[in-house]
């Protein structure tokens, strides 16, 4: 085996046998994916709860096409007693209760959840209008169709997969680089390797290679699981996520090297890496979208490499932008890696002392 290959194998085995590292870099983020994917995946399509009291001809006698649309919007529960229905609304089990008094459709709502109740009222009103229109036999002058800007299938899973993947890769690359540097230095392995006829380049390339390989495996697992279980739909130029991830890995390894270069113990290096990674993940929209974030947060997050990785991945993986959308994030990530590496090399020494 060549020196380069056996170094890579040694590093990879060291990683795979470190159960804690594997857990925190692969399974832990996956748990979040399952959590977000499972809990929130049907939120965007979630229906409004509606309680129907007795017979309501508006609902019961809808033409089939209208009825389908109605069922898309509402989850109907039938009760016979008005009081029951009101209780359900009061308890928040139902957004609205609907009752028919002669020709009058009465909607009971609670102010406790105004958003739900007003959405429900608005939607109901439009169904009443439609029914009135149909009753007059007039051909409507305007019809109304709404379409989302993004891919129609855009759901929570579409947003969280790239973000969580970005976080997972940031974690494994930063920690991997920090722990390797400090660990090898404190066990004197680094000095021992200086006395072996291996080039520094093969050492560095082997370490980067293994981290990139791990990142690719993470991507396959994440995207595979999201597609298989939670219905993630990849946009056309998703493959641009691969170079994005490679460059992201380089950036985060540079961060990890910096953490490793300035600290003397493995514990010190990993806590420093933690201080980098976790806030960065929050501020870069790995856990929640930053669309509604205040301006200052948006500004801060644009100083972080993970923000660019996440945005780039969202663009090519789910927002359906062309491959060129990844180019600017890639350039920024590479620039970041270079700058941080330069800083790290000022602190770097072969030995702990």
């Amino acid at each position, binding site marked *: 085996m060549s020196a380069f290959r056996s170094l890579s194998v040694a590093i990879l*085995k060291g990683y795979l046998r470190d159960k804690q590292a594997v857990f925190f870099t692969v399974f832990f983020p996956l748990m979040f994916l399952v959590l977000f994917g499972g809990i929130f995946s049907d939120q965007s399509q979630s229906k409004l709860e509606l309680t129907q009291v007795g017979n309501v001809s508006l609902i019961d006698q809808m033409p089939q096409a209208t009825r389908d649309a109605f069922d898309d919007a509402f989850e109907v529960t039938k009760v016979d007693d008005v009081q029951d229905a009101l209780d359900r609304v009061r308890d928040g089990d139902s957004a609205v209760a609907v009752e028919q008094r002669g020709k009058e459709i009465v909607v009971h709502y609670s102010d406790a959840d105004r958003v739900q109740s007003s959405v429900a009222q608005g939607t109901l009103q439009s169904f009443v209008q439609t029914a009135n229109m149909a009753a007059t036999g007039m051909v409507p002058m305007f019809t109304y169709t709404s379409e989302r800007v993004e891919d129609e299938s855009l759901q929570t899973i579409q947003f969280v997969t790239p973000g969580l993947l970005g976080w997972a890769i940031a974690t494994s690359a930063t920690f991997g680089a920090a722990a390797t540097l400090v660990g090898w230095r404190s066990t004197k392995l680094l000095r021992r390797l200086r006395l*072996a006829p291996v080039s520094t380049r093969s050492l560095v390339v082997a370490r980067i290679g293994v981290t990139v390989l791990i990142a690719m495996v993470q991507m396959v697992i994440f995207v595979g699981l999201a597609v298989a279980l939670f219905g993630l739909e990849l946009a056309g130029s998703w493959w641009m996520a691969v170079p994005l991830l490679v460059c992201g890995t380089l950036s985060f390894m540079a961060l990890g090297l910096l953490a490793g270069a300035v600290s003397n113990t493995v514990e010190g290096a990993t806590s420093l890496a933690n201080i980098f990674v976790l806030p960065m993940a929050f501020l870069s929209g790995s856990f929640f979208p930053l669309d509604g974030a205040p301006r200052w947060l948006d500004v801060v997050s644009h100083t972080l490499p993970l923000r660019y990785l996440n945005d780039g991945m969202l663009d090519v993986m789910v927002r359906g932008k062309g491959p060129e959308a990844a180019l600017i994030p890639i350039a920024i990530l590479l620039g970041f890696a270079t700058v941080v590496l330069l800083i790290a090399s000022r602190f770097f020494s072969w030995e702990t002392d």
Partner: protein
Amino acid sequence: MIDDVRKTYGDLRAVDGVSFGVGTGEFFGILGPNGAGKTTTLEIIEGLRSPDSGSVSLLGRSPWPRNRELLPRIGVQLQASAFFERLTAREQIRTFASLYGVGTTSGDAWLARVGLDDKGDTQTSKLSGGQLQRLSIACALVHEPEVVFLDEPTAGLDPQARRNLWDLLSSLNDDGRTVVLTTHYMDEAEMLCDRVAIMDKGSILELDSPTALIRALDAAVRISIAPNVLALADARQVDGVDAASADDSSLTMTTRDPAAVMSDLARRGALTGLQVRGATLEDVFLTRTGREYRA
């Protein structure tokens, strides 16, 4: 091999004008107490550190800056065992073998030679101190280097394990390999080395073969017997005795004429608990520094 090498850390003169040469195939020892500068000297020769002044020539070349043509010809065991994380003993030595471009068979052979083939599948974090030392020696030798540097290969081992390791170590230069080793132990240096440099506080006190060093001392032989066989005053009168002292466990006489002392003691019937101890490297250290040798 090295000439007038100096290295200071701040105010501390870790290596203060050390010069010596080691011949091909020689077993050379550097002996000294903690902080004597042994490791620093070795690291300068290996090319891990640059000397502040002086010159080093290793196999005819300069080891500093890092010389990748020299590296395959030397083997190094560092004072602290340096291994890859979470690899087994066999994986470690095979990885080192391939770093030097030699096959796995050589790795396996060395593993067997240091007696670790049954521990081949154990991760290094679960090996004992002695097993780690042996593995680290094996890793220094897998590529059959011409010169091998061993920094305290027997540190931290129990006496039995040390003796076992001596057998291995003394066989290392059988096929003409040069061995340079540092140690705390006088007996180890006496036992293994063709020549010994006794080092203290950054400089070399003595450099010669162990027997020559001891002979040059013209040191007294110590003869001791059980404490109450002979009165201290009588002991001073024994033929050939230069001095005598007694403590709870023994009565010790020093002499330059052990034969005379022995026959007189025999005449007096005072041979109970007899022990005879010749001078050792410890005595050399003692006479040269005026300090008792404490490793």
